[in-house]
């Protein structure tokens, strides 16, 4: 008996030791590419697979390991951050949102790319604002822009015409938008009048597509770049929350329980819009990517059924419309052991041909000058012209490392008004308190 026990103990100990040893370095060079594969970013998966093949054919001896992360936006950031914390799991190349760049660069997750872009012939094709989108607080470049986006109102022409609204529809104020939604509610039962993303489950998407599309149409800003102060106690914030409340508590939007489902972003573009269950959606320029033949829900008729209108300012103040822009980049991991090979992957994935393929496939607004002037690109999607024009009146998220934290507080405020747990005033004052807690009182202003 004793000998059996000791044999078992030795085996167990040996297993532990051996398991420790086997986690050594892989023999050949392998680069890990982490990206999101969820909803509108499904097309990215096709793109990455194609680039992997081309890359491996060109660079013998290097294998590309694709790590698609199937998660909604905030969960994607969390998983990426957890991977980035240990060098054994840190990706070599990652798909990184422009608004996370400054924060993640400061966290030491991203490698500066200045020495690589300096030698890259294609770099001059990127306009300055696109270059800046990938810059960290220290001015170094940490990400190369894949494309940008703008946001506006998508509407179903058939539904609006049926309830007697003018098509093409061009609302001038928030009230026009709400009135149109009320008309749909009254005359087209069973159709959700308007969708505005809101609440914690949608992550930062709710903040940008929902709240900021409203706030930047008021007289107030979220953050004043010139004084570097965050706005608190502003009427714009309360009014924007009131709009969210009017939509959800006024039963003009999806039911709050539908809107608080993490998959509602997919549901809107894959089901509600193509099936005619939703009349108006405050959404991104990329939405039609889902309906292209390469997308998740091909819908050839969308070009005739769907219309687009700019999001009006609150009371029609100049310039009469507003939009928000973001976009994603490819970045190289700071803990990568093969930074040069990783950079080669980035450069290949974002050369003229591949950028163009990606921008067309996922309905992105091109940033490379050679792509945005390409005839094939301009002809690829009837909404390209409309969304590109919005760039003139667009806004960008506050470029500070505190933004992701402040955005979390906005989600909390939105959710508490859409569920009726707080009035817009109460939620705004909770938000003010939280912002003071994050950035300090001296960095806020009225």
């Amino acid at each position, binding site marked *: 008996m004793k000998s059996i*026990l000791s044999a078992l*103990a030795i085996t*167990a*100990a040996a297993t532990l030791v051996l398991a420790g040893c086997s986690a050594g370095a892989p023999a050949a060079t392998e680069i890990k590419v982490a990206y999101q594969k969820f909803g509108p970013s499904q097309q990215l998966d096709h793109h990455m697979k194609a680039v992997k093949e081309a890359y491996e054919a060109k660079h013998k001896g290097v294998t590309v390991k694709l790590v698609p992360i199937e998660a909604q936006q*905030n*969960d994607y*950031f*969390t998983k990426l*951050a*957890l991977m980035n*914390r240990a060098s054994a799991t840190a990706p070599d190349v990652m798909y990184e949102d422009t608004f*996370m760049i400054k*924060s*993640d660069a*400061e*966290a*030491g*997750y991203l490698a500066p790319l200045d020495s690589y872009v300096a030698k890259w012939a294609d770099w001059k094709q990127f306009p300055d604002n696109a270059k800046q989108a990938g810059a960290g607080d220290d001015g170094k470049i940490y990400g190369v822009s894949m494309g940008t986006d703008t946001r506006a109102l998508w509407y179903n022409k058939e539904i609006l015409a049926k309830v007697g609204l003018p098509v093409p529809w061009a609302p001038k104020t928030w009230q026009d938008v709400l009135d149109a939604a009320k008309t749909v509610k009254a005359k087209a039962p069973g159709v959700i009048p308007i969708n505005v993303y809101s*609440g*914690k*489950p949608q*992550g930062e998407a709710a903040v940008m597509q929902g709240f900021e599309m409203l706030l930047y149409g008021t007289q107030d800003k979220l953050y004043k770049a010139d004084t570097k102060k965050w706005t608190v106690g502003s009427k714009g914030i309360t009014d924007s929350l009131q709009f969210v409340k009017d939509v959800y508590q006024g039963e003009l939007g999806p*039911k*709050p*329980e539908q809107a*608080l489902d*993490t998959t509602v972003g997919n549901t809107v573009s894959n089901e509600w819009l193509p099936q005619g269950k939703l009349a108006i959606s405050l959404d991104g320029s990329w939405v039609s990517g889902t309906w292209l033949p390469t997308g998740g829900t091909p819908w050839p008729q969308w070009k005739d059924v769907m219309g687009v209108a700019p999001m009006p300012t609150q009371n029609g103040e100049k310039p009469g419309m507003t939009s928000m822009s973001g976009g994603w980049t490819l970045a190289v991991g700071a803990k990568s052991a093969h930074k040069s090979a990783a950079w080669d992957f980035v450069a290949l994935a974002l050369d003229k041909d591949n950028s163009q393929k990606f921008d067309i496939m996922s309905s992105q607004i091109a940033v490379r000058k050679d792509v945005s002037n390409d005839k094939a690109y301009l002809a690829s999607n009837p909404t390209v012209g409309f969304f590109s024009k919005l760039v003139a009146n667009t806004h960008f998220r506050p470029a500070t*490392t505190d933004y*992701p*934290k402040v955005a*979390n507080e906005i989600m909390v405020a939105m*959710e*508490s008004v859409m*569920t009726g*747990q707080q009035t817009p005033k109460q939620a705004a004052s909770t938000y003010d308190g939280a912002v003071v*807690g994050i950035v300090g009182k001296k960095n806020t202003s009225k």
Partner: protein
Amino acid sequence: MTSLTTTAAGRDARGRGAHPPRPRGVGRSLVRSLPLVPAIILLAVFLLGPVISSFYGSFTDSSLTGSAAKGASFVGFGNYLELFADKDFPKSVLLTLVFLFASAIVGQNVLGLGLALLMKSGNRVVGAIVGTLVVTAWVLPEIVAAFAAYAFFNATGTLNTLLAVVGLDGPNWLYRLPMIAVILANIWRGTAFSMLVYSAAIDDVPDDVRESAEIDGAGGAKRLVYITIPMIRRSISTNLMLTTLQTLSVFTLIFVLTGGGPGTDSSTLPILAYQEAFKFSRLGFGTAIATIMLVVGALFSIVYIRALKPEVD
């Protein structure tokens, strides 16, 4: 539990003085405890290590992104002060206690005891069928049970479909009554454990005691209060402690059913800790909440051990 009894027995044997302690006693017991070393090391590495590291983490501003992700700095009681000032925190503690009290202490224990008693005196076939059904919920992995409960409670789920058959229009349980839904789901999932513990305990109540009580004229209720419950109180204590600790850490069930929402209406402490640490990237703040959970669990354990201290019969 077992280790406690063994030590006690060991002490007794020595106390009787059958073999006076030998001079090399200390050395001998050290050698004899050698086989325990691997287990102790594993416990230290995989249990004590994370607890200490999380405890330390709760005093830092450790984060998933931003400058604090590179090197966290010590912030003393900062996280705790902020937590106690946060109005979501008392609400979350209250929700946790409601969840604990309603689903574990009352729900699982009372229902478990009731089922065990009924199965003891009921028809064997019915008992076997009921037992199997109850245990099924417990055998399911937590995530599967959570999805099953979601399919039952959601707006167009089984429950509302059944209600519609009798002409009732059920609310969206997960949205309108989130706490009721998660409490019922946890009772459904956890009752089997209490039922099994109590069945075993009741089987151990000697028949002659029960019979003599019966002869003395004690009815069912009296037998339960004066005979059965006092005789199984050690099992009650153990079971209360286990179900309490299990329920305090229930995460998957609530996360799948309601995600802690709507708003914060079902955010118990584990959900709040997850949200702060992994949704809002504030690892230090999240671990502070986890530490509070540890304290709450410890307090309950002490209360149970004190209140239901098993005396020697």
